[in-house]
């Protein structure tokens, strides 16, 4: 999404550009509305993919060779980290709503909380990596049993989606830090929607792996 809206911004005139003081957003263009639709349609497609994985998991749970494995304890910590990242992103988003110019206190606060979100996102991915290590140490590999297969597949693909979100946050941080760049707030809004979705998706996946129906 990031690369999509960038050229439109480049061709748009920079208003009020004085000593790097740049307005925070252009509001309400049809491109903004399209990217908002785009993110929701994307979320819908991702949900559908995970629904397919889930139905495969339910079918597989019904077969006799299913053994339920105990989830690594670090996952609880990871869940907290991801939930916290949702909160920090929300604080950042609200600070930015109040900001009018890139060089304002509100914008500075938005930057700090966004940085915190980035750190938490990376920490979550690292935590998932530790969870995989713990499982391996316990002798559960990808092909060990159907439950471990699904666990690795679901968590790995979820981490890929988290990394996409992290990349979007890095891009946003870059735009917010660079004093001479324009900034499109709809991009921030969409990243926030996506990030919260990733959080909700994780809670769903965690429950799915934790509970045997």
């Amino acid at each position: 999404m990031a690369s999509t809206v960038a050229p439109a911004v480049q061709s748009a005139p920079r208003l009020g550009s004085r000593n790097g003081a740049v307005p925070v957003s252009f509001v309400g263009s049809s491109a903004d509305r399209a990217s908002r639709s785009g993110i929701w349609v994307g979320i819908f497609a991702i949900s559908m993919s995970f629904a397919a994985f889930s139905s495969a998991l339910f079918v597989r749970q019904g077969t006799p060779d299913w053994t339920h494995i105990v989830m690594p304890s670090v996952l609880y910590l990871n869940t907290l980290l991801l939930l916290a990242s949702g909160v920090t992103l929300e604080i950042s988003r609200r600070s930015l709503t109040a900001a009018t110019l890139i060089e304002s206190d509100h914008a500075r606060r938005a930057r700090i909380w966004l940085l915190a979100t980035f750190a938490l996102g990376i920490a979550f991915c690292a935590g998932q990596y530790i969870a995989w290590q713990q499982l391996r140490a316990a002798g559960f590999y990808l092909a060990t049993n159907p439950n471990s297969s699904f666990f690795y597949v679901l968590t790995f693909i979820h981490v890929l989606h988290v990394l996409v979100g992290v990349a979007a946050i890095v891009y946003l941080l870059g735009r917010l830090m660079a004093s001479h760049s324009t900034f499109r707030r709809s991009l921030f809004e969409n990243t926030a929607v996506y990030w919260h979705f990733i959080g909700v998706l994780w809670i769903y996946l965690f429950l799915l792996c934790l509970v045997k129906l």
Partner: protein
Amino acid sequence: MHETSVEPVHVHAPPQGFWRKHVFSLDHKVIGKQYYALALVAVFTGMFLSWLMRIHMVWPDAKIHGLELLSKNGAPGGVMTPEYYLSLLTMHGTLMVFFVLTNAPFAAFGNYFLPIQIGAEDMAFPRFNMMSFWTTFLAWFVLMLAFVIPDGPPIAGWTEYTPLSAVGRDAGPGMQWGASLWGISIAIFCIASLLGALNFIATTLDLRAKGMTLMRMPLCTWAWFITSCIALLAFAVLLPACILLILDRHAGTSFFIPGGLVASDRLQPHSGGSPLLWQHLFWFFGHPEVYIAILPSMGIVSHILINSMRKPLLSAKVVIYSMMSIGFLSYMVWGHHMFVSGMNPLSSLTFSFPTLTITIPATILTLIWLGSLYGARIQLTSASLFAIGFISMFVSGGISGFFLAQPSLDIYLHGTYFVVGHFHMVMGVASLFGVFAGTYFWFPKMTGRYMNETIGKLHFWITFIGTYLIFMPMHYLGLIGNVRRYQSFVDDYMSPYLWLHKDMTVAALITGAAQFLFLYNVIYSRFKGAPAPENPWNCTSLEWSIPSPPPWNNFGDRHPIVYHDPYQYGVKGSQGDFVMQDSPEQIIASGD
């Protein structure tokens, strides 16, 4: 808050340089043409494979010169092995379903005309659009690699049924690396199609010109929009299925491979997987895929028929609602592909009912087309001939669907040529007729030149009669009990009917050769065709209000405003018997 509403000047800057203009273009029109070109390459490859298969089927000992160059193991000395026949079958199906029937009517024409028809400058996300084409291209490239690897293409068919598609080398030639390439290619294709569908949906929802309400969108725009909604769901399910298949093949997991499976006298080191799970996931994609192929053609054909009849359809709204309900129902019927899979008979019955229900909107559509054609003074151009041909194919192929939808009949017919005839007519040929119609119709807009009508009509008649000669007998052969997927029928119970198979092969060779007329027509007309004006067919939709071929930003600096329904024909307008969608004039009903 500092509210500044500044419309971006353009979605993207004018393209500079060869690479940006023709290769990595952000322009939806160039991307549409790239999709079309890829589909052309794929369709001729697929057709060539069908020639080889048909020749081998009736003359299994025939030496085809040069075939040994394609595969040393598959065709030693130019004579095809039975396994290589299955390899070609797989590649024919995969190329045609994914790279032709999905790409040509939906991605190619949709990309080119959907933004223009709604009055937009480009797709919502031009960079995603470029990515989705090049990702599709990569998928095609990976699939074609299967021809050159020593292992050869997979032999599992385009449905790649598990468990044999998942166990690797032991399942036969092509199943070690060929099947992996298949899985990777289709996974990539899924990502590309998801990006494309997302783009189509966001564009249709948010980039419509002023006055272009949803109900004022042309029928083909509606068809592309509904198709993109179907594609979004369908490919989102096929992608996980492909990922699990690849893991089963290379990571030792057992999603689809049951325990105790013996292939090539070797006990497979897997346990507990469910082969039926693949079928469920695959057909949850696979049946909607049929409508991904046919719905755009329905839209294109409606659009063209209305223009050639110079009067609206009996009800455009009912056409839209029928297409919607087909799209909705397409998700409830995947099990009808699995009547003989050992599924619970009660499930079969549950899937049979919605399948038969689909025939209701399909019949409504057909009746609307036929009812509108009745008494119409239709202009018989190549485009409208192919549009009428589409209805013919849709009806002929669709009627056999009634039989297949019933589990008790399907148990007999499922493994026979009846099914082959059915889906080739209703999905393959019908959809391609829509593509042909669209090509003849929109060629003047895309290139600024007419296609040759004489060659076009010749192309139509040979193709129309030829496809009936190829696919109609398949229904009868199926009723006799002619098994599908067999490499030849020489010395067995089918020998009394071998003459029919031979005739079909000859018909396939002739019909296929006629497609070179089309190819010649496209290439010749592109450079030497008669110059076409802005609106050669006196059509009402927005794509005909801009120059042919359209400039990079479609409407220039103009922002079109839409005043009318898309099909104001048979009225007194300032330019003739029609009023353009963006013409502010009042409409006075004529006659009545």
